[in-house]
């Protein structure tokens, strides 16, 4: 068999076998092969060489893509994938994404279980449609594969956002409030630690000064009464206030506390704060993730709608270019460009 004829029939065979049962594809191929061989034989009888006759027979038959697609279309394998069919599923999805949430937003009260519904259904459509396209190995494999991936990711996000965390968009505001409260509690703990650290440094400084001037330093476990203390800060409310080197007239509660517990107190306070901080940070982090996710899900409808519109336009453009390409190839075959 001439190599041109062999490769031509091979290409038709490949396309037919993808979508038709092997016996049916084989039957078509056999028939086309016989047709070509008779056509070649006739031309050879008329005086053409085998090569020239083969070229002419193949040219008359038309491009392998068109012949195979014609047969597939006759078997309703390609006909059902018309532009409209391809376009209407994404259009339906876009419509669902745009219309249903708006309609549901008008419903009061919205049952909790109904909220994720507009997200679940189109996502299922996307997955099934894409899967069907991939199974039938259509030309639009790339955009459909992208759509499939988008659909799958969207579906996972749906589940995580609405089922896994148990949050709804409605509780988003409450969560933000809780986060602010946590932050203020942490700030308070931090200020306590700072106050303790300042108190210690003031105590150390005061003790050193008292020792230098031969004054009595405050003693642990000793209660100072008014006027009996060794020295006292001028302003008890301020831990950063200056210390005066004179006997205190009143008991310094803060110093007494300090002298009782010393470093142990400050260490415990610091450890507690670090612990609290770690717990709250972890909590905040997970809740922030959930909040981001829920916030994202709020805008999700629009996002997926836009993505799908893009894919729809892509599909249509792809089909348009595909049609033009096939038409051009067909014309070139008819003019014998490939001969």
């Amino acid at each position, binding site marked *: 068999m001439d190599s041109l004829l062999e490769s031509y029939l091979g290409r038709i065979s490949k396309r037919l076998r993808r979508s038709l049962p092997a016996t049916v594809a084989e039957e078509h191929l056999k028939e086309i092969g*016989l047709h070509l061989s*008779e*056509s070649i034989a006739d031309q050879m009888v008329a005086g053409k060489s085998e090569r020239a006759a083969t070229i002419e027979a193949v040219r008359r*038959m038309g491009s392998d893509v068109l012949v195979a697609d014609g*047969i597939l279309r006759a078997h309703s394998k390609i006909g059902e994938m018309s532009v409209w069919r391809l376009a209407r599923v994404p259009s339906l999805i876009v419509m669902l994404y745009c219309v249903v949430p708006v309609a549901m937003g008008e419903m009061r009260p919205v049952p909790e279980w109904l909220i994720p519904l507009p997200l679940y259904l189109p996502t299922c459509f996307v997955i099934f449609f894409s899967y069907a396209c991939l199974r039938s190995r259509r030309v639009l494999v790339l955009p459909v594969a992208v759509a499939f991936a988008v659909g799958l990711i969207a579906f996972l996000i749906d589940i995580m956002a609405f089922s896994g965390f148990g949050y709804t968009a409605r509780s988003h505001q409450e969560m933000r409030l809780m986060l602010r409260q946590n932050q203020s509690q942490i700030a308070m703990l931090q200020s306590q630690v700072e106050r303790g650290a300042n108190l210690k440094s003031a105590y150390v400084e005061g003790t050193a000064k008292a020792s230098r001037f031969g004054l009595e330093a405050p003693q642990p476990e000793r209660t100072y009464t008014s006027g009996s203390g060794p020295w006292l800060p001028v302003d008890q409310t301020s831990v950063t206030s200056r210390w005066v080197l004179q006997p205190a007239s009143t008991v310094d509660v803060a110093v007494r506390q300090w002298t009782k517990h010393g470093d142990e107190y400050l260490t415990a306070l610091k450890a507690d704060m670090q612990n609290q901080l770690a717990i709250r940070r972890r909590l905040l982090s997970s809740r922030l993730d959930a909040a981001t996710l829920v916030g994202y899900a709020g805008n999700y409808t629009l996002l997926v709608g836009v993505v799908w519109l893009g894919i729809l336009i892509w599909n249509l453009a792809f089909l348009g270019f595909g049609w033009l390409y096939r038409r051009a190839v067909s014309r070139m075959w008819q003019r014998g460009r490939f001969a």
Partner: protein
Amino acid sequence: MGFKTDAEALVLGALVAGPRHGYGIVKSLREGSSGLFNMNEGQLYPLLQKMQERGWIKGEWEMSDSGPARKTYVLLEEGQKELANRREQWKRFSSAVGGLLLIDEQTGKAEVSHG
């Protein structure tokens, strides 16, 4: 030619004379029309498939002692009815087109004979 060819009717017409295989149909159309209907052969097999599904024709593999088996197509009763229907349509169409396109020619002839 500016008129759209009814390929289905032509194939049905080619099978009236008796069973034919794909190449035979194309050849008979080409030869019967003196090369005017040079059908794109790649279009024939999808067309035959469709016509089989509609029940107009039937394809059968015919064993041959001299060469490989060939698939021949036979016109069925439904196909004959469809062909009769298409013939009627064609008569009306050709008559209407003839009435419009050939009127000047007839008038011209009449003028010549009077002149």
